[in-house]
């Protein structure tokens, strides 16, 4: 169910919907083209190189390096209740890039471009329906040991 992915979902239907089902069980996966083996994150169903529409999944370590970040003070619709919040772009160890919030293990004062981060799958505890996402955390952090963020403190 891809509508599970993200705090606000704009995109319920996609050929890579199984990504969200995997994320719900704590796994982050890239797509792997069945034709030429191209690994892609974000995942994609169709290969721009060999044109194959067949693909499988490759589980990622979630390890990565922080490329850049910003603290968003002026938030769009659906995010005013968690603003301000900080997002970053990460180079993943196995290739590809990912954009996410920072979790509680990395306060803003500790942010450094080039730092090692761990991408950790998350479930929104404060939203009744199933909503999955991921946060950027200190290396070694796993989603089974980190508490879900408290609603009053937003996403930090």
């Amino acid at each position, binding site marked *: 169910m891809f509508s599970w992915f*993200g705090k606000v979902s704009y995109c319920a239907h996609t050929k890579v919907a199984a990504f969200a089902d995997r994320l719900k069980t704590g796994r982050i996966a890239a797509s792997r083209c069945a034709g030429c083996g191209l690994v892609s994150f974000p995942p994609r169903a169709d290969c721009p190189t060999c044109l194959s529409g067949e693909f499988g999944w490759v589980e990622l370590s979630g390890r990565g390096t922080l490329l*850049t970040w*910003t603290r968003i*003070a002026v938030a769009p619709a659906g995010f005013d209740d968690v*603003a301000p919040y900080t997002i970053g772009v990460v180079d993943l160890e196995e290739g590809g890039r990912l*954009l996410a919030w920072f979790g509680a293990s990395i306060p803003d004062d500790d942010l450094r471009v080039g730092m090692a981060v761990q991408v950790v799958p998350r479930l929104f505890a404060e939203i009744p329906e199933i909503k999955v996402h991921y946060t950027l955390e200190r290396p070694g952090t796993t989603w089974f040991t980190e508490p879900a963020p408290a609603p009053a403190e937003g996403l930090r």
Partner: protein
Amino acid sequence: MARIAVVGIGHGRFGQRSDATVQELAFEAWREALQDAGLAPDAIDASVVGSVPEYHKQRSLAGVVQEYLGLNPKPTWLTEAACASGSAAIRTAWMAIQAGLHDVVAVIGCQKMTELSTGEILALMGRVGDVQWESGFGTTFPGYYAMFARRHMHEFGTTREQLAQVAVKNHYYGARNPRALFRKEITVEKALASDPVASPFHVYDCCANADGAACVILASERRAREMGRAGVWLDGVGCASASMSVLRRPDLTGVPSAVDAARQAYAMAGASARDIKVAEVHDCFTIGEIMAYEDLGFCEKGRGGAFIEARQSYIGGATPVNVDGGLKAKGHPIGATGVSMACEIVKQLRGACGDRQVPGADLGLTHNVGGIGQYCFVHVYRRD
């Protein structure tokens, strides 16, 4: 290749225009461009409207504009390339004339951004990026450019003060442009002390939404000579794309589509970056102008911060940039912006810019970026 002339320019007032519909805004620019060209409406063979439809209540915008201008049954259509829609319209008109389909084409860039409620604007704001992988985390337009800025600061040592200096320059020239939204000079201190938007950006790093319209009339060389309006030419057009998603951009310190579009435009015009006497670049955020200096070749990669700090983009510097105030001070009615840039360059090449005239301006450039660079158009204009 045949040359294509700019025979008329018209520019309405930018700002909160609660006094007018979008087609009424379009008419202001259209009237001025026709008068400037010395043409009657029936001399126009076709129009191309550059605008971003989702901001308007009125659907099928080219249709309502064409009717209000009194141009039925002449052909018209809309071009959309986000914030570069106006330049997409100019390119489309250039293609139509080059193909021999039409001789005289009016390009109308128009946009009303203030008829939406704050709620509607905030909802639109949430969908500027890739909605599948990015928007679910609350990304914003300033946020993307802020992440470019952070990376630029990290790799090249660009500073917040240098970002602010771009805003100071553009407000300085905006204060001298009667069509600009903001006509007040600011200081670096004021820019740095303004409210945060998306770190490292504060309010003065960001341009403002606005309403407005601009119009240029393009003509084939033959028709331009017949009407005695040959003199300013659109000699180079370049256009390229880059990934919509920030996650598929190898380099986060520039706009790759701008580099590609500039290369095409310079080659077609037989010009190089150092020949450009005056430029209009897409300063939707201060880092946008600094990256443009580098992407267009006005300075070396990574030296954009030093370029503004040394006032090289002021009149008298190596390449004067946005000496009409840019998006920052003029306001950014997105569909109108690319056409507004063209108007300013043509005016500069005519030597008609008064106290913000660049002396000896005979070759000018416009650089219009759509979104975060998924589209870029670079156009080179020459005066004989």
